[in-house]
């Protein structure tokens, strides 16, 4: 019997394959394709204190092997998430990780407080990196001190495992990683999207309503793998790796680089069954390689 189970930030998952925040809604849509209990964990859409409308369309632009988005954190607000989404999703046997964003430390704290003790919530992923919302994203995640403040604030308000989700748009990712570790983060998610832009040459306008947006998908995978590798050597807390995963091979690359678990984001759009295929592909690969425990792969890249 091959062991696929891992533990991240104290959250036990039956396999290391999660779905990335913002790409999987609150699970309802993909429940029409497969049994969500098959997943390692679900990271739900970025949740804020108040309901948010997000940015006007167009919110998406396709790019080579990737896409730009400027959804702008459209969500029904934390109370509606607690009342309507978590209970529904709790019918599945799968840890729910709520991704949260705030305009201020107080907001982060308040959301964390409201989610603390909510049945079904296994952990909080703290988005300090969303590049879309002027006062809630970029600033927090690009400065170690600010990043640490956010983590300390939510740690204060919640007994849930706290996962800091880092922005890749920084000079030195290890600096931010060390800061959030010191501030008490139980795990680190990376990467969020790279800041990008596309221009429609016919209209001469930016394709996205917000001018710039977040780049994700296979295009960014090499940057994500590099950051996971760098951070894995800089901190002791576990890492959830993401950025361009569409196949089991991609996922294994992240595990070898040092991730304890992975998340499929834009890969869900490429193939709605991608997370399942990743899980099954990892299993098949472990069998083929005669590896009994997936944990043997974590950080097992050979550097000589």
């Amino acid at each position: 019997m091959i062991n696929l189970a891992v533990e991240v930030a104290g959250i036990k998952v039956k396999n290391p394959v999660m779905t990335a925040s913002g790409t999987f809604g609150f699970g309802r849509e993909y429940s029409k394709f497969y049994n969500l209990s098959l997943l390692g964990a679900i990271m739900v859409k970025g949740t804020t204190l108040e309901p948010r409308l997000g940015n006007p369309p167009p919110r998406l632009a396709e790019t080579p092997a990737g896409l730009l988005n400027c959804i702008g954190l459209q969500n029904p607000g934390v109370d509606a998430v607690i009342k309507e989404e978590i209970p529904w999703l709790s019918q599945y046997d799968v840890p729910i990780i709520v991704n949260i964003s705030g305009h201020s430390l107080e907001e982060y704290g308040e959301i964390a407080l409201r989610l603390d003790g909510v049945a079904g919530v296994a952990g909080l992923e703290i988005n300090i990196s969303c590049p879309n919302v002027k006062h809630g994203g970029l600033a927090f995640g690009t400065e170690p001190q600010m990043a640490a403040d956010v983590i300390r604030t939510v740690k204060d308000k919640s007994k849930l495992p706290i996962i800091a989700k880092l922005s890749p748009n920084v000079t030195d990712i290890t600096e931010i990683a060390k800061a959030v570790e010191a501030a008490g983060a139980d795990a680190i998610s990376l990467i969020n999207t790279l800041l990008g832009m596309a221009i429609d040459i016919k209209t001469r306008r930016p394709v996205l309503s917000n001018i710039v947006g977040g780049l994700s998908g296979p295009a960014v995978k090499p940057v994500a793998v590099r950051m996971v590798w760098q951070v894995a050597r800089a901190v002791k807390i576990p890492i959830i790796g993401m950025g361009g995963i569409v196949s089991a091979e991609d996922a294994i690359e992240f595990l070898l680089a040092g991730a304890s678990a992975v998340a499929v984001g834009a890969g869900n759009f490429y193939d709605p069954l991608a997370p399942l295929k990743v899980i099954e592909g990892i299993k098949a690969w472990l069998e083929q390689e005669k590896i009994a425990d997936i944990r043997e792969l974590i950080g097992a890249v050979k550097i000589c």
Partner: protein
Amino acid sequence: MVRRGRDLLMVYSLKTRILENKKILPDFYEMVLSAPAIAAEAVPGQFLMVKTSPTLVPFLRRPISLSRINAEEGTITLVYQVVGSGTKLMTVMTPGSEIEVVGPLGKGFTWSVKDKVVAIVGGGCGIAPLVALTEELLKAGKEVYALLGAQSRDKLLSDKYFIELGAKVMIATDDGSFGRKGFVTQLLEEVINTTRLDQVYCCGPLPMTKAVVKLTKEALVPCQVSLEERMGCGVGACLGCVCKVRSEEGSLTYKKVCHDGPVFTSSEVIFDD
């Protein structure tokens, strides 16, 4: 095989066999797929997310409407216009090979037993989903005006088929190369002026849609419009494809074209100018 979950499943992610893929007009192709499960459940106005390449480029699937749905034979027909890289790649796919699709997706057109006389208004590739709709409307015993528009004769879809079906076909081309010279909305205006329509169904370019919504609103004829927006997931998860609508309480909000649409009641949609 991927194990299916506990919910009632109505969306499929499948490899389907291509039965036909042929050029029907200079810029348009028709692709027939063997997809019994989808054909059994789909309704006119719904669409598929189509994987156009075996590689990671294009990364996103393309939304293409179901142009015909043949539940008996288990086939569906897509009619697509070649506009960019994705649709171009579709043109070289050969009968016998497979194509990955997700669907049927979205909310389709609806009709009520009370409707007697209806009009479909289609422009460009927007005519495609109206074919399946017209088949159903005629089956349901409605009198159907099919108002079809295109830039020119060689871009006009399916006009003969609408005639065969028994719809009352009226045509307008921008350049006058076929039918009336002008816009399809002028045809609608005439029909509205002469006939009591119970429902108008509209699918086409945004300016056309806006004009149709304005006309039907003034004439107090209920109207359903099929909208387009750039899509990521196509299933309602990414919030990429929203359009502005008036909520029940009257406030402005966003709905997902892929999930709450693509067909909307014209009265709920808010168009920017």
